[in-house]
């Protein structure tokens, strides 16, 4: 069994996390009498996870460099207010209401603003040598306060129609046919990636996975993609909405009702896109290599000629960009910008990264793990909501799970040493 697992070259920690996630899902499903593992609940779960998952990708790199960012929730709040005011008050006056470019300008502004805040905090940390804990603790207070100042605490609504798609919901789902197309592209990409990796290894005469293991990995990966899309497509639009759609397109409503699948939600696609891009950045680029080298031994990285300060500043800049994207997702989902948006998100993001196997000692962590960690956290939370557990108890459970998960990880790591 162990030998087979090794032949698959799958990270055992990832398998453990998937096992934990499966246990949580099945447990909640049994406790709730089958209400958890429904397409509807899983679809909502995926949408709720998106914002935290996006930010967790950046937090992994920050923690890998032996730093921390406590300001992400506040940055999300501030940038959310900026894009809210931009598209609800400024752009309608300049371009007119519901102008097709509004959402693009808003997203671009969020990315630029978030990135600028991140680079600024990163510069203070990297070049002035102020500990990241302090800079971002200050940032937490500053940006949360700034979020209030944008409108003196007023909530801004509603958002632009096209922008709202970023938050999911009925209009923020891409529909079944497009989802299947994405699944096909995804599977093709997985197969191509496996094939090229194998060819590359063979060219250098390195050992490759046996054929059966390669086939298993391909089958599992493609199966996961197809399965996720099938679930999203099995969550049907409400009958009333489906009817309206059919009428608009002049279609007859068949006997027994009309079933139109939601398909994948836009924020989930954004999160997956961010996760893929961040994985490539972390594993396949010099920047990513330097981030991990700095985490392993900052002095060694410096002596090897790595510009550690600039790298560190960029890591925080990247975190800011991801906060900007997450701000768009959560503002769009709420269809309003409030100065309290993202409150306590920093703790959920850090918890997601840590549950996902990122070591606070630095040098260790994966993007996929952090995204799974975000999903575990959100599963716990939404499962307890489903069971009617009240809010204080939810926090208690999440807190205990966080500590427990890190303890298990510590024991596991001691075991492999």
């Amino acid at each position, binding site marked *: 069994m162990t030998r087979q697992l090794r032949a698959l070259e799958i990270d055992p920690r990832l398998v453990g996390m998937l096992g934990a996630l499966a246990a949580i899902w099945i447990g909640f499903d049994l406790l709730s009498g089958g209400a958890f593992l429904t397409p509807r609940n899983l679809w909502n779960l995926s949408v709720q996870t998106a914002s935290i998952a996006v930010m967790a990708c950046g937090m992994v790199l920050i923690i890998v460099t032996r730093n921390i960012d406590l300001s992400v929730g506040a940055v999300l709040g501030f940038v959310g207010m900026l894009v809210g005011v931009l598209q609800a008050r400024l752009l309608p006056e300049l371009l007119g209401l519901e102008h097709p470019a509004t959402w693009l300008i808003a997203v671009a502004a969020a990315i630029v603003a978030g990135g600028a805040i991140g680079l600024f905090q990163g510069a203070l940390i990297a070049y002035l040598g102020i500990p990241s804990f302090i800079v971002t603790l200050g940032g937490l207070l500053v940006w949360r306060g700034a979020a209030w100042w944008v409108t003196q605490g007023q909530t801004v609504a509603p958002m632009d129609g096209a922008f709202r798609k970023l938050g999911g919901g009925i209009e923020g789902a891409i529909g079944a046919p497009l989802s299947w197309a994405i699944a096909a592209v995804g599977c093709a990409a997985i197969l191509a990636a496996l094939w090229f990796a194998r060819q590359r290894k063979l060219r*250098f005469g390195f050992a490759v996975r046996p054929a059966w293991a390669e086939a298993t990995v391909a089958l599992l990966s493609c199966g996961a993609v197809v399965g996720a899309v099938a679930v999203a497509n099995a969550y049907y639009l409400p009958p009333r909405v489906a009817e309206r759609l059919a009428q608009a397109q002049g279609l007859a409503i068949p006997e027994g009702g009309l079933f139109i699948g939601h398909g994948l939600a836009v924020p989930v696609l954004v999160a997956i896109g961010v996760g893929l891009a961040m994985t490539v950045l972390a594993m396949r*680029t010099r920047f990513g290599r330097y981030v991990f080298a700095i985490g392993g031994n900052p002095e060694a990285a410096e002596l090897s000629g790595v510009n550690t300060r600039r790298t560190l500043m960029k890591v925080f800049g990247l975190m800011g960009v991801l906060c900007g994207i997450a701000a768009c997702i959560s503002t769009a989902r709420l269809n309003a910008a409030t100065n309290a948006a993202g409150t306590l998100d920093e703790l959920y993001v850090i918890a997601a990264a840590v549950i996902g196997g990122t070591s606070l000692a630095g040098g260790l962590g994966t993007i996929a793990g952090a995204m799974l960690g975000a999903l575990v956290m959100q599963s716990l939370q939404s499962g307890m909501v489903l069971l009617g557990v009240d809010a204080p108890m939810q926090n208690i459970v999440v807190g205990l799970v966080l500590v427990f998960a890190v303890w298990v990880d510590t024991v596991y790591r001691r075991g492999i040493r």
Partner: protein
Amino acid sequence: MSVPLVEMRDISIAFGGIKAVDGVSVDLHAGEVVALLGHNGAGKSTLIKILSGAYPADAGEIRVRGAAARIASPRDAKTYGIETIYQTLALADNVDAAANVFLGREIVTRWGTLDDAAMESQTRQVMARLNPHFRRFKEPVRALSGGQRQSVAIARAIYFDAKILIMDEPTAALGPAETKQVGELVLELKRQGIGIFLISHDIHDVFDLADRVSVMKNGRLVGTARVEDVTKDEVLGMIILGKCPPGAVPGPGASADA
């Protein structure tokens, strides 16, 4: 005599008012091994970190092959062919051997992404020369033994055509067999025309390998001698008392009553 491969003239550096290195001059020729000796805290490592670009000198001049060299960072030093094996080895423990060998100088594919297969292949070739028994290419270097880690650090220094090699206490953490291996490597590199600075606080480690010794004490140069011209005891006297024997060229740090 030929133009020295590297020449450090009147180098000084102070940390918070304490002169760690004070007007030290040393030189090194191609295919020569110069041992830099002195007690812990004598300023050897600091002097050598100036040459490897880790510290900027407050005063003095570095010349490489007779031309003035500007070394402000480890990257600058490497462009002059100066490679360093630090006492601490300076390895990133959490990544594998190839990642360490190529750290800061990665091989990339035409899309600008890391070419890990190519880097591993190159690392296998250089390691086959250094340590044929080395097999653990996939593991983070944290999992390796002291000797294996040393091999990785050496591989990193010699892979990129080093002309000048600095070895800071290369055998401090090694057993007898591995120490002997490092000794053989030093002689092999010397045959290839590489100039080597060997830094040690223990004269026995380096006396048989070195062509010349330079001794430092309290940040100043006591003197430099060819190993044929001095005995081990005399060198020991230079290290401990700062006494410069007749066979050596005295430096500014030689004690006056010698």
